[in-house]
């Protein structure tokens, strides 16, 4: 039904994020294509090593009124979807349809309390997801963003989830989009201590776009989350800061990846894998196979046997203070 190219496997690209083994390090980011099983399956067919579901909560949410997306300069954009989701019970069939195809699925969970996070995560685990990604960081759902910037609150959520899911599934924590790197490190350390198996950096950054004719924000919710190339340097630094802070759990880089080179930058900064969202707009769903091919070309050029050899391999440097 579509003309975009399908992926070719390349054994040099296989990665392990803790216990989760993937064919390649490109992962579909949460909130993109993920409302329906078909969207997740298509990302996998176009080469994604794993797919993250739409963030799902306990109860249904309609999300924010439109406009929900707006394009900015270049390939960057903002969104204020407001995490529409049908609630975990009605979303399970979508997840199961993807799991059935032996596609590694990461379930993105949301909750209004530690207990609710845990309940959603438990349902996701039962549906057969390979890992649960806790969305403690959506910038246009105010309560979530505040949660993600509070190390104690994050620790409480992560421990409750880890305890209730009884180690049946690894718990990843998705950090808020922020340039407050010391705080991100505190939150990440709190999450790690509480039992998180991986860190995902970053979610979109809180931002504003204005229409001068209407003299109003361009998004229905007023504020929204910035994504795409505009946030890459910020998320890249966050990955590097986390890596340097001596985290001993894998880091997944996300923000503005359009090409293999972008992905390699994240790997060099300390990431084990990457997630791609907005890039789907720019390069179509085939972005996953394209980025993989581009990483493959780089490995060949520098005679590197395996993509994991790139993680954290940027030259050390001193930060002047």
């Amino acid at each position, binding site marked *: 039904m579509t003309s975009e190219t399908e992926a070719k496997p390349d054994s040099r690209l296989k990665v392990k994020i803790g216990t989760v083994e993937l064919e390649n390090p490109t992962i579909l980011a949460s909130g*993109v*294509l993920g409302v*329906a099983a078909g969207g997740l399956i298509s990302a996998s067919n176009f080469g994604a090593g794993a797919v993250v579901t739409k963030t799902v909560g306990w109860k249904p949410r309609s*999300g924010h009124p439109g406009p929900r997306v707006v*394009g900015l300069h270049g390939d960057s954009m903002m969104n204020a979807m407001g995490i529409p989701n049908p609630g975990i019970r009605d979303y399970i069939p979508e997840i199961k349809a993807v799991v059935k195809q032996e596609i590694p699925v990461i379930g993105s969970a949301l909750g209004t309390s530690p207990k609710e996070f845990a309940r959603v995560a438990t349902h996701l685990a039962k549906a057969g997801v390979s890992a649960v990604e806790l969305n403690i960081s959506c910038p246009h759902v105010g309560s979530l963003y505040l949660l993600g910037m509070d190390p104690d609150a994050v620790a409480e959520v992560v421990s409750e989830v880890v305890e209730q899911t009884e180690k049946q599934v690894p718990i990843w924590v998705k950090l808020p989009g922020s340039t407050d790197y010391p705080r991100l490190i505190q939150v990440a350390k709190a999450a790690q201590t509480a039992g998180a198996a991986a860190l995902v950096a970053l979610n979109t950054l809180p931002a504003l776009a204005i229409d001068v004719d*209407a003299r109003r924000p361009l998004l229905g919710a007023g504020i929204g989350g910035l994504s795409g190339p505009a946030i890459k340097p910020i998320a890249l630094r966050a990955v590097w800061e986390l890596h340097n802070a001596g985290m001993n759990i894998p880091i997944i880089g996300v923000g503005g990846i359009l090409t293999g080179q972008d992905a390699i930058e994240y790997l060099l900064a300390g990431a084990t894998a990457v997630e791609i969202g*907005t890039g789907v707009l720019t390069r179509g769903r085939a972005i996953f196979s394209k980025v993989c091919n581009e990483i493959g070309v780089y490995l060949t050029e520098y005679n590197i046997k395996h993509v994991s050899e790139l993680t954290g391999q940027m030259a050390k440097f001193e930060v002047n203070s």
Partner: protein
Amino acid sequence: MTPNKTVKKNPAKLAHGLRPFVKPIQQIRQVTPRTKAFTLKATNIARTAVPGQFVMVWIPGFDEIPMSISAVQNSLGIVEFAAAKVGEATAALHRMKEGDLIGLRGPLGQGFKFPRSIDKGPLLCVAGGCGSPPIAFATEWAVRKGHEVHVALGATTRSDLLFQERFEEQAQKVIIATDDGSDGIQGTSVNAAAFHLDIDPRYSACLACGPEGMLTSLAELLSNYPIPLQVSLERYMKCGIGLCGHCIIDNHGTRVCLEGPVFDAKILRQTDFGQWKRDSTGKRLPIDASDESCEG
């Protein structure tokens, strides 16, 4: 300009669909008791839009909702859409006055494909209920290209027949159907289409828009004829640009906002067509003919 260039491979084009053109409403006309037609000057949209494409209409302070383009006046850069009042956002739109600002993002999606040759037989255009806007645009477009066009137009009652005069002015033949028999034959737009087919079934193609129950019965009717059918679908749309996945209708990830809203009926066989729709939360609900706000 060919109607069906793939948008997804052209980021520059997508950029259009990512930012609204905010313009004053030029003209508002009450076209049926519950439908108003709005015109705006949006030159970029008027220049590139083809029938079947849609725009996301931003009603500041309320919502952004998909609307089919119902006409363009290319030389004046004018775009028209026709909105039925069904809920909060469309009610807010109906309260607006000429000169008020709204935003248009688009043109979005893929439109109808017209037969290359005008000699393969006339086109059959079928519009049921609120399905008239893209069909009116398609009719005018096809007539301008030299096609002979026959129209089947249906609504619950005479006053709800949308764009009847436009169809009667443009098309060579129009058959009207109303559920209550207040105008034309008693029945639906599908019954009107069957009437056309009984007279002479040598159509080159059939283009249709309307409630999904009507589209499925039309597909059933046309399965007895060698006439390719294209239908315009409606699904809940959040982004309109193929990113969020809310409008996906099958396990291949087919997005109504990007690969549609117009589809060849053949490829809809293994999809949610006629069976399921998503609500604003993304929950799948069975399509129940009685739920549909625009009958015909």
